[in-house]
């Protein structure tokens, strides 16, 4: 442990100057960004950081840990990537395209673009099915190969 400082250290002058310039520009743009509904915009920016760091990260970290521990309890720790990869990729697609997949903006989408908003959920489910299916097939192949390489049990 470093001994508690009695006075506040200023830090590198270069870093101070750089950050001062950065804040000046951020403030210049920020005043304009907050010109409308300033509270809601500030809430969105701070909320985005907090939601990500304090909700999203713990949530997917916990889900990942549950998968690892679940498979370890079943004695199949090596199967982890075969669950993790398709789950992560499917979740990523859902996160990015959530408004279309969930149909949140379906009516506006149909009216504005003249396209059907109905296919997104189906296509996402199909992609997830292909990812999980492909992963399962790879795992099955691996398990079979491992079984073949094992010497036959003596009778």
């Amino acid at each position, binding site marked *: 442990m470093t001994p508690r400082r009695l006075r506040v250290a200023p830090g590198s002058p270069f870093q101070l100057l750089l950050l001062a310039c*950065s804040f000046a520009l*951020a403030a210049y743009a*920020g005043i*304009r*960004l907050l010109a409308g*509904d300033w509270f809601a915009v500030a809430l969105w*920016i701070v909320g985005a950081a907090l939601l990500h760091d304090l909700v999203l990260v713990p949530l997917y970290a916990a889900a990942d840990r549950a998968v690892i521990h679940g498979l370890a309890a079943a004695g199949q720790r090596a199967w982890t990537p075969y669950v993790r990869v398709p789950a992560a990729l499917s979740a990523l697609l859902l996160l990015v395209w959530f*408004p279309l997949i969930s149909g949140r903006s379906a009516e506006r989408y149909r009216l504005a673009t003249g396209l059907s908003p109905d*296919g997104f959920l189906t296509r996402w489910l199909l992609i997830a099915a292909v990812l999980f299916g492909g992963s399962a097939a790879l795992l099955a192949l691996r398990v079979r190969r491992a079984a073949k390489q094992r010497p036959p049990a003596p009778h």
Partner: protein
Amino acid sequence: MRDQDRLPTSPGFWRSPLRGPWFTSVLGLVLLVGITVLFVTGLVSYAAYNPGLSPVNDTTPDKGLLGFYLFAWPTDPVWLYRLTQGVHVTLGITLIPVLLAKLWSVVPRLFALPPARSVAHALERISLLLLVGGGLFEFTTGVLNIQLDYVFPGSFYPLHFYGAWVFFAAFVAHAVLKTPTALRTVRRRLRDEPEEGVEPAADTLVSPRPDRPTVSRRGAFGLVGGGSLLLFLTTVGQSLGGPFRRTALLAPHGTADPNGGPNGFQINKTAAYAGITAADTHEDAWRLVVTGRTGTVRLSRAQLLQLPLHSSSLPIACVEGWSTADQWWRGVRLRDLAALVGHDGDPPDVLVESLQRHGAFRRAALRANQVADPRTLLALYVNGEELSPDHGHPARVIVPAAPGVLNTKWVGRLTFGAL
């Protein structure tokens, strides 16, 4: 578990053996390049609207110095905006997994104690809030806007534009402070020298009591890259158009074209959405009002068809990143219409007004260079057929290389030289 490791403020709380300077440096350098391209293409798109030309084009009238670089948007090459905006949106979507992985890799830093070692360090941490919050704000508003989910607090253009500058201010400071370290880490690793800071230490992100690995670093990079590739492959087709549109399985303007036939290409806003009815555009009711130096001329569609008709092959490219291949438009040159009202040879800027009663861009200004381009048309036909209501019947403007929304549909009035 030691008691102190129950808290995220303790380095021992963070167990992943993946975290470390190498992982963070590689992701950081990818974002350094990627976000720079996003920022530049974003500024280019902002300029493409010609916001300096007329208040009707300008959703950010208080931009001040932030519009320092604005320039007259060119009409060549015709695919210019298709390319820059396609890159902006597709790259933004592709970078999402990299951004998430980068944030994951440094999340222990959020909780690190002491909160500040110096004034500079305290300011840097405040700057990081702008970096992370601003970055997530930019990505989120962009992703929501292209899906027409307008839940963000205000109009997209000013939010995304000013938000980009706030984010970029923090991004530049962060890049200046961290890029040398990232480059050193990567260079050392590529030369096979021992990695600096593999020893767990407060500021290296390396866990002091790592879990057993469940994936190698290479595997983790593979997952991030695979996520990017998957997003890219299911999105890029909406910007390439043609047979590739089918491959954009989840993108808003992927998989299908509306209806079929000559008018069967992507629509930004349908006639129904814009509130245009058959009564507005009926042969007997609709007149094009053209005003210029010598006064005002009112033209029916039949009279327009008596003027010399010209063809040009031009794409539609939307700010939302999707675009169409070139369509074959036929109609009257805008510069010929300017000549009708006294602007011979040297056409001026024009204000184009739609029959639309609402909508942010129901009025749009085009610059003299756009009016003068012989490929700029008031189109009456597309791909050999009359325009459909959704594509702007009875007449629409089509300008080479301009953002889609400046190609005004259901045109009612053209005012030359009055901006």
